[in-house]
């Protein structure tokens, strides 16, 4: 079933073929209630407890759309520079499936709410010059999510070979926004990176709008990737495949790459690429054939008769436009200028997923340099050690800002500050609480320090001699000894100054 298809090495594939990609991204909206009923739209819950006659599709029940879901969709559309339809309708997409309570999905077909926009992304592949790409947005529309099936029996708990399935309809009816790009035909070898960067940027835009928590791992952002190849210079679009089940940024990139390599092999062998759905496997990084689109269901779309048309008044649309927050790309440019960072510095921040954390820390009063130092240094190291995401650490930008403030005021040195961070991460409270509980404070009292310095000189006569003979660099050994003796609480600069005063 999942035997690896023959592949052509990526660089070689690109010599002969031009890839075209397209992305369909589903975002679960963070409305309080579902799209067409008053059940909670939150993730999870005991099975079949977030349901009512409407989202169970019981006979006689009728949908009534949520104003908030429409508004959130318009927000996304406006942020993606789309036109907002003056009049449009929901449509029924008819197909039988056990996780779909009505055996049709209320969606939008030829009259989407938002059309014809774009999203600018900056593709930075390290060695090459960062590339600006404008990704065209075909449409943004609203639809309802399905229930969730659990497959029981068989070897793997997957759908194939299962004995039966168990369905939970809690997710049924949660509002989903589908964002469809126009074909991206000019990315060339960058196609996989463009795909990843687009999804990453889209995720930031949607998050900044406050309309979804866009967590790929929880499925509140899901991605289908279309890929096709055409012979170089032919100027046509090849037959596309639609790869589903692509649920991380890295997988988006890998799926495109893998499809380019596979389709090149098919075409090289004189074959034709089948128009089909393919599934991406996280473990192997390859795609396998799913349902053929040739014999696909005929969805028999028609206007949803239970719902009246949408005609968002222009003043409503303009009011939503005025309420849009500063978009991530604009904000990044502004802060990069304010913080006086190079493009490389910015890239480092974004690659570490530290941009928002640093911004938050600066907003809480820290200097940009101080904020970057802590997040990219000590905190990134901690996150790496524990395998956690940076944003997942048990410390807030506000708290990091307080640590930075204590350092810059001289109340802490870096070594003590690391101990404060230890305490915060260990759940001992706020930085100030940790400082108080652990009794951490820089010792700068001259008499106490002088005694410690004298002791260090006495204990290390040969080092003292070296310094006296002009080898000032050796002072570090004595500073270290003093720091150790004071358990890090001394001000290292002050210690060095005292040592040099005494010995030179």
């Amino acid at each position, binding site marked *: 079933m999942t035997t690896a298809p023959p592949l052509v090495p990526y660089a070689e594939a690109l010599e002969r073929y031009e890839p075209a990609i397209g992305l369909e991204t589903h975002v679960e909206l963070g409305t309080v209630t579902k799209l067409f009923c008053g059940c909670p739209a939150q993730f999870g819950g005991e099975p079949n407890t977030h349901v009512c*006659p409407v989202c*169970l*599709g*019981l*006979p*006689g*029940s*009728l*949908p*009534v*759309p949520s104003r908030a879901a429409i508004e959130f969709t318009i927000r996304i559309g406006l942020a993606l520079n789309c036109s907002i339809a003056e009049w449009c309708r929901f449509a*029924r997409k*008819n197909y*039988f499936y*056990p996780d779909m*309570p*009505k*055996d*049709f999905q209320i969606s939008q077909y030829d009259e989407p709410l938002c059309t014809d926009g774009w999203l600018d992304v900056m593709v930075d592949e390290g060695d090459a010059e960062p590339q600006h790409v404008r990704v065209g947005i075909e449409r943004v529309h609203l639809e309802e999510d399905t229930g969730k099936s659990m497959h029981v029996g068989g070897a793997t708990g997957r759908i194939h070979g299962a*004995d*039966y*399935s168990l*369905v939970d309809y809690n997710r049924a009816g949660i509002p989903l926004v589908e964002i469809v790009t126009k074909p991206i035909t000019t990315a060339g070898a960058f196609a996989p990176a463009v795909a990843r960067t687009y999804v990453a940027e889209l995720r930031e835009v949607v998050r900044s709008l406050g309309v979804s928590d866009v967590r790929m791992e929880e499925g509140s952002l899901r991605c289908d990737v279309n890929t096709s190849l055409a012979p170089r210079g032919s100027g046509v679009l090849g037959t596309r495949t639609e790869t589903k089940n692509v649920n991380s940024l890295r997988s988006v990139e890998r799926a495109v790459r893998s499809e380019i390599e596979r389709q090149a092999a098919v075409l090289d062998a004189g074959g034709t690429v089948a128009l089909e759905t393919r599934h991406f496997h996280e473990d192997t990084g390859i795609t396998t054939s799913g349902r053929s689109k040739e014999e696909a269901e*005929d969805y*028999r*779309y*028609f206007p949803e*008769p*239970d*719902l*009246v048309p949408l005609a968002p008044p222009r003043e409503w649309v303009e009011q939503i436009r005025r309420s849009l927050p500063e978009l991530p790309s604009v904000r990044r440019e502004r802060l990069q200028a304010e913080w006086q960072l190079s493009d490389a510095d910015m890239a480092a921040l974004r690659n570490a997923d530290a941009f928002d954390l640093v911004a938050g820390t600066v907003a809480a009063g820290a200097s940009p340099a101080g904020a970057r130092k802590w997040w990219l240094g000590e905190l990134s190291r901690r996150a790496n050690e524990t395998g956690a995401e940076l944003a997942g650490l048990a410390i807030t930008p506000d708290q990091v800002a307080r640590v930075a403030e204590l350092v810059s005021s001289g109340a802490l040195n870096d070594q003590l500050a690391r101990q404060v961070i230890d305490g915060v991460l260990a759940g001992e409270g706020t930085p100030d609480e940790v400082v108080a509980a652990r009794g951490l404070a820089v010792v700068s009292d001259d008499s106490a320090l002088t005694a410690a310095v004298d002791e260090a000189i006495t204990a290390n006569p040969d080092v003292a001699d070296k310094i006296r003979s002009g080898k000032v660099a050796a002072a570090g050994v004595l500073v270290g000894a003093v720091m150790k003796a004071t358990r890090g609480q001394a001000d290292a600069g002050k210690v060095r100054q005292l040592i040099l005063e005494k010995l030179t």
Partner: protein
Amino acid sequence: MSELTTMTAADLSAALRSKDVSATEVTQAHLDRIAEVDGRVHAFLHVAAEEALAAAEQVDSRRAAGAELGPLAGVPVALKDVFTTIDMPTTAGSRILNQWRPPYDATITTRLRRAGAIILGKTNMDEFAMGSSTENSAFGPTRNPWDLSRVPGGSSGGSAASVAAYEAPLAIGTDTGGSIRQPAAVCGITGMKPTYGGNSRYGLIAFASSLDTPGPLARTVLDAALLQEAISGHDPMDATSIDEAAPPVVAAARQADVAGLRIGVVTELSGEGYQPGVLSRFSQAVELLESLGAKVTEVSCPHFRYALPAYYLIAPSECSSNLARFDAMRYGLRVGDDGTRSAEEVMSLTREAGFGAEVKRRIMLGTYALSSGYYEAYYGKAQQVRTLIARDFEAAFGQVDVLVSPTTPTTAFPLGERTDDPMAMYLADLCTIPSNLAGNAAISVPCGLAPEDGLPVGLQVMTPVLADDRAYRVAAAAEAAFTERWGHPLLASAKGLDGASGLDADDTKGAGR
């Protein structure tokens, strides 16, 4: 037969409020009547005797406690088995629902309960409201109280027959292509299809969502108005519900006056295919209205001839989608699940076993009309015809206040005559369908007996959208004049059930004259 069962709802209401009779007595009398005749009529699929008596007792104790009773408090009503009821099974006349117990009440059900109306039970219907004879019920046909060998019309045949058989003074039906008006006409009672969106569809098991309209059936126009006023009005659970004040239909039914009203006779709704007795009674009705001071003209609605084909594309298309949910996964029948078959196979086997022939025909027809490659030629064209029909109405209502036609081309036909001839069956809705496509209000009121078979004929009065009150006003005027001419209500001539105990056979001539 108890006198309580022959009283109108309005009279029962007055008697209840003046404490001449208790709700329990009224309810018991109707339950007795059902026990007496429903074995022959088969109007009911479920009789909720206990629940009905408990509800009646509540009305009586509220009255005893000094509460002011509403107009329908203590008045029995029969509910078409297409509305969900939390305390009774709901079948939509289909095996596939497998005596489903819904976990919620339809809005209409809730409003009836709040009004204190006593729901006697659930009435028989063509499966999923698809049919014009009630023969498509999975649970056997209902018979026409005028002649038990004939159909009561459909799909609300159970509701119409229950009222005509004095089993209930009032009944709720639904009208998608004529399913209230046509059975009302052939059972000799009044039936109203209100403006689409005037009555909530929440909890009404959908046949064709853009056409389905709940409405009242009753033995008098005023009774129908009383029932409509109790159930109509905006419902936030139905996005297609009109958020405006409901038309004052009870006042209009009491007004019963057509003086100066401009009445248009629709040219296209007569002629070939119409039973002579239907046409003659219709002509007499028009003359009667003229004699009451109405100005009658003939009006052409050229696109009405395309209403029937457009309807038989739109309604099946919507039904093919609406009925997809009966898939054996969450409720209702499940057939063939032996542990080896796939969900898809179990769905197909269940739907094959659970749906009747007409439902299958329409599902397949709708699936065809919506298929890619056929959509524009069929569904798309039908939607354009819908626009043209609405424009015909608009133009006509620019010239006249109401339009009239026979309700049906023929009187009640014999059981079995059209069951395997779908096209012949579909013709029964020829006159009623245009108002479903355009969404306007239309009422059917008895206008006499066809001389050739002695069976009732209905007069249809169509009005603009939201002018439901005008339909009641005209129908009530016609009813009053006819009753005066005949010397009794038309239904008093019915002899199918109470032939010997009924009225003098000569009386039938009154209405036939």
